[in-house]
């Protein structure tokens, strides 16, 4: 009797061990990724057979430069020298198909949380823009770039129509192949980001400035072939049913010797009014830039507190300085929405200690 029991348990152990290793090996051989494809590669969106061979369609989102990561900032308590927009309302997204579209998405994610609720209306978080894009996976954010299969989307979106590969200047995938999606729901659509017909390589957005440092309001002078990202932000905001009081890009005071530029004092005024500001950087060697979202300041050291699109942390930069090691602070993009009634009440409540 006892022998039989030992034998029975031994056989059961062998069977269960076999099952365990089988399941584990199947899982590690190719888990199902976010696109429903059995692959360890999170960027394989489709697999098809051609000439007897499997072909994986891979979309690699824009990425942060590994060597440029800046240290996390320690944000002090709010004081007379420190001005902050409540961090609990300013999202920190990592790069989702372009730094400028991502920074604008963070700005509009903030406004979505503070009185403009129709800016993000997707199924996540009850239709309220979350504080990070982790829920959608690294490098994905439907407010920056819509994507088939992401956030309940069942039709092609921004990424499907415009994205090929980081830095690509090739014609967009939809051209000559299928009908372009109706632009909407994401900042990248309106800002011209990644769109070859707007002369933007993948990962890029163009902004325009007056050389003399004065503000350039809502520039449309080179449409339709070229789109000003600042004008695109206005188009996005209006497409969601809201009005814009003012939008402009401007060199900061002193850049290239100008005396008409945007000052740290003006930046502080924007933050004190509850309006985040796009911080524009430029690398002098390549003349290519980077966009981040400024949401606070510290008068001591003329610091800007910001989200840099490379992670979900807070960082800091000296106004007019270098970030993190060779991008020079060159300009700003200021966006002033027309106050909604709900927004006004919310801002009043947020300002109340």
């Amino acid at each position, binding site marked *: 009797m006892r022998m039989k029991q030992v034998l029975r348990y031994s056989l*059961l152990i062998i069977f269960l061990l076999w099952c365990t290793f089988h399941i584990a090996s199947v899982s590690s051989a190719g888990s199902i990724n976010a696109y429903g494809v059995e692959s360890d590669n999170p960027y394989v969106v489709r697999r098809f057979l051609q000439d007897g061979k499997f072909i994986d369609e891979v979309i690699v989102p824009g990425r942060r430069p590994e060597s440029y990561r800046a240290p996390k900032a320690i944000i002090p308590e709010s004081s007379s020298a420190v001005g902050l927009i409540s961090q609990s309302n300013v999202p920190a997204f990592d790069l989702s198909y372009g730094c400028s579209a991502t920074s604008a998405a963070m700005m509009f994610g903030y406004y979505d949380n503070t009185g403009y609720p129709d800016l993000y209306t997707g199924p996540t978080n009850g239709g309220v823009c979350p504080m990070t894009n982790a829920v959608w996976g690294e490098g994905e954010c439907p407010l920056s770039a819509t994507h088939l299969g992401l956030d309940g989307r069942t039709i092609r979106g921004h990424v499907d129509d415009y994205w090929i590969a980081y830095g690509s200047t090739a014609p967009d995938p939809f051209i000559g192949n299928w009908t372009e999606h109706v632009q909407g729901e994401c900042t990248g659509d309106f800002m011209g980001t990644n769109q070859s017909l707007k*002369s933007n390589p993948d990962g890029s957005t163009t902004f325009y*400035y007056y050389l003399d440092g004065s503000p350039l309001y809502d520039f449309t002078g080179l449409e339709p072939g070229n789109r000003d990202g600042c004008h695109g932000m206005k188009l996005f905001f209006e497409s969601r049913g809201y009005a814009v009081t003012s939008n402009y890009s401007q060199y900061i005071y002193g850049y290239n010797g100008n005396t008409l530029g945007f000052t740290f004092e003006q930046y502080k005024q924007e933050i004190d009014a509850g309006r985040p500001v796009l911080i524009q950087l430029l690398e002098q060697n390549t003349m290519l830039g*980077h966009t981040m979202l400024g949401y606070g300041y510290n008068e001591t050291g003329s610091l800007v507190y910001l989200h840099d699109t490379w992670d979900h942390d807070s960082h800091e930069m000296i106004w007019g300085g270098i970030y993190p090691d060779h991008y020079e602070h060159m300009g700003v993009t200021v966006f002033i929405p027309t106050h909604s009634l709900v927004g006004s009440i919310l801002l009043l409540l947020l300002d109340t200690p």
Partner: protein
Amino acid sequence: MKLIRFIGLWFLISCLMIFYSESEAVRPPLKPLGSEQLQKMAADADMIAVGTVISVRQSKTLQPPLETVTVHVAMAPEKILKGDQSSQLIKIEESYQQFFMPDIEIVPDGRNTSGKPVIAHIAGPAPPVGKYQEGDRVMVFLKFLNKSDQYCPLGSGNHDAYLGVFYITAEGVVSDKYRFSGGVAGYAKYEADFINYIISNRGETP
């Protein structure tokens, strides 16, 4: 009762194994350069050299809406770690495409500007090529171009490849495109250590 407990334990172990295997599947885009990749670069290179950039010239060819930018670099070698030891001058050529953008646009009145010059700045990825300035000391991993006596850095033009251009600075040997992983980072602190490391991994005797 014992059987249920046993199956429960099995289920727990299976779940842990599945979780572990899936957590490994997360793949960062471009990892810091490790010793294996560096050894592969050393083996793939036709020439590895340390030297000083003595001239940089840029030319552009317009093919609307794109323009091809070609960078011509001349480098005076100090040490050739792999390849033709007799080279007195190394010529490097790299090229990439970008959308043509006039440097300064003056937009006529009536289209929301006052006729003042407007400049465009693109926020986006830098081209995957080396950045050179006269006087820079660099270490380059090069492959032959089809043209005679011209080279191109490994990985040039490809955002997903490790670019074979390193800068020799007071802080050691660095890349402006990626970081080094632990092992390589140790050698990269000092130029001499890095050179010795490359020599021992270059895949041939000069």
